[in-house]
C-alpha cells in the first residue's frame, strides 16, 4: 500500500533492525529448513512473505530482495524497474517521469538509505534481475545463501587447519578432519 510504503521508508532505520534480526533468525534455522526441505517450505513461506512485504513495501516478489540496499524502497515499484536508480527523468519535486503522481521510488530510496545504519549499502552496484525467480521467496533464498557462505568459510578454516597439521590428521583421524560434518554434530556448542 502506497502510504504504508512511504511509512516504511520514513522509518527505514527501524525496519533495517527488524530485517537484520529476521535474516539472522532465518540463517540460524537453515539446518531445520534443510531437514524439512526447502522445496516443501517454498509455497507457505512465499505466501507469508507476499502478504507481509506486499502490505508494507508493495513487494512484487521478484525473489531477489535488496531492500536493505535500497533504503527500504522497493525498486520493482519503479516503472522502469531500475535496480540502480534514479533515472534522469525525475520531475521537479521528486516525482516519477512515468507516473507523475507517484514519488520517485529511487529519490525516496536514497533518502531512506541516509537514515539507516548501513547507509553505504545503496552505493553498491546491483546486478540485473533474474526473471526466473519471480514469485519465489527471497527470505528462504537469503537464508540458503548466507548459510552456504558460512559453511564455505567454516570449510576453508578447517582446510587450513588440516594443511597445517597434516601429520596429526594422518595419525588421529578426528583431529583436523576434512570430511563433511552432519549438522547436529557441528551445531553442538553453538547457541
Amino acid at each position: 500500500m502506497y502510504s504504508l510504503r512511504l511509512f516504511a521508508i520514513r522509518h527505514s532505520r527501524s525496519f533495517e533492525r527488524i530485517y537484520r534480526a529476521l535474516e539472522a533468525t532465518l540463517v540460524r534455522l537453515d539446518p531445520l529448513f534443510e531437514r524439512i526441505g526447502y522445496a516443501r517450505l517454498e509455497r507457505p513461506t512465499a505466501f507469508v512473505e507476499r502478504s507481509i512485504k506486499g502490505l508494507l513495501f508493495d513487494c512484487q516478489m521478484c525473489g531477489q530482495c535488496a531492500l536493505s540496499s535500497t533504503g527500504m524502497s522497493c525498486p520493482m515499484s519503479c516503472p522502469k524497474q531500475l535496480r540502480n536508480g534514479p533515472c534522469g527523468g525525475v520531475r521537479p519535486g521528486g516525482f516519477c517521469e512515468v507516473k507523475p503522481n507517484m514519488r520517485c521510488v529511487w529519490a525516496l530510496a536514497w533518502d531512506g538509505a541516509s537514515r539507516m545504519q548501513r547507509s553505504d549499502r545503496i552505493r553498491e552496484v546491483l546486478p540485473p534481475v533474474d526473471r526466473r525467480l519471480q514469485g519465489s521467496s527471497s527470505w528462504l533464498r537469503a537464508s540458503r545463501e548466507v548459510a552456504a557462505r558460512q559453511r564455505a568459510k567454516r570449510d576453508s578454516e578447517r582446510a587450513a587447519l588440516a594443511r597445517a597439521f597434516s601429520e596429526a590428521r594422518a595419525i588421529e583421524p578426528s583431529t583436523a578432519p576434512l570430511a563433511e560434518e552432519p549438522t547436529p554434530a557441528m551445531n553442538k556448542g553453538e547457541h
Partner: protein
Amino acid sequence: MSPDTAPDTIRPHEPPPEGMVSGSRLEQVLRAGQFAVTAELNPPDSADPEDVFAAAAPLAEVADALNATDASGANCHMSSIGICALLTRRGLGTVYQISCRDRNRIAIQGDVLGAAAMGVRNVLCLTGDDVGSGDQPGAKPVFDLDSVSLIRTIRTMRDTGEFLSGRKITKRPHLFIGAAENPCVDPLEWRPERLAKKVAAGADFIQTNYIFDIPRFTAFMARVRDLGLDKQVYILAGVGPLASAKTARWMRSNVPGIHIPDEIIARLEGAKNPGEEGSRICVELIQQLREIAGVAGVHVMAYRREHLVADILREAGITRGQR
C-alpha cells in the same frame, strides 16, 4: 572530412595504445588534458545513408566524436547502430548510444560486439526515456538492464572478456565507456552519489544533459570534486542553443529531465532576435562551464540548429586547432 590519422580509423579490434582503453580520438583528447567536444547527431527518419552524412557534415569538423542517439525520447528514428555503421565507414569518431528501454541483455551484448567490429570505440550507456513520451506509447518497454548494470556489463566484456553469462569472448571490444548524468534535476542531493555509482560500475566519461542552471551545476561539481570523482571520470557538460522561448517552454513540458531556469526563458522572450539570443546564451554558458574545475569538455545537442554549432564553438573560443 579528410580521414587524417584520426585514430578512429584504426582496425576495429586492434588493441589501443598504452594507457588507453579504446584509442578513440575522444579518449586521446581527454587523456591529453585538452577540452573535448562531442556533438549529438539528429538521426534521420530515412533509409538513405546520404541523410546521415548530411546531418554529420556541419558537426564532423568541430567534434571529437558524434553521438548516434538510440530512439531518444522514445521516438523512432534510424537506429544508433545503423548510424554508427555508416559513420565508421567514413572514419568518423562515433559514440554509440545504448538505451535499456528497447532491448534485453542478450541483444545489447550482441550489439556491443557488432558495434566494436565496425570500428565503434565509444559507447554511452543510458537507461532510456519511458515509451510514454514518444511517438509509439503503446510499445512494450524492456528495461532488462539499467544504465549502471549496463556499464558494468560492457566493462566486463572489455576487461574480463566475458559475457554476463561467463561465456568467453575471443576478441574483446576496446571501448571507452560513457554514462549520462543529469545534475540539475531532482533529487539534487543524490546526483553526485549516483555519479559515484556509475564510476564504480566502470564509467570512463560522462555526458550530462543540458546545463542551463550554472549555480545548480556548480554545486553539483563541488560535491563531485569532494568525492574525488573528477579525478576518476571525464565530465562533458551538455549545452545547446535554444531557438526561442516557445521552444524552451515546449521542451520543459514535453522532454523528460530538462531544467531551464525562468531567467533564460525571460531573456529569450525579451530578445529582438530570439535565435541569436539563444546562440549567445549558449556561448556564455560554454565559457562559464569551461571555468568550472572538473569539466573536461562540452557535449553539444543542437537539435535542428546544427548549422550554428561551428560558429558557437568558435565564439566561445573552442576550435579544433587550438585545443
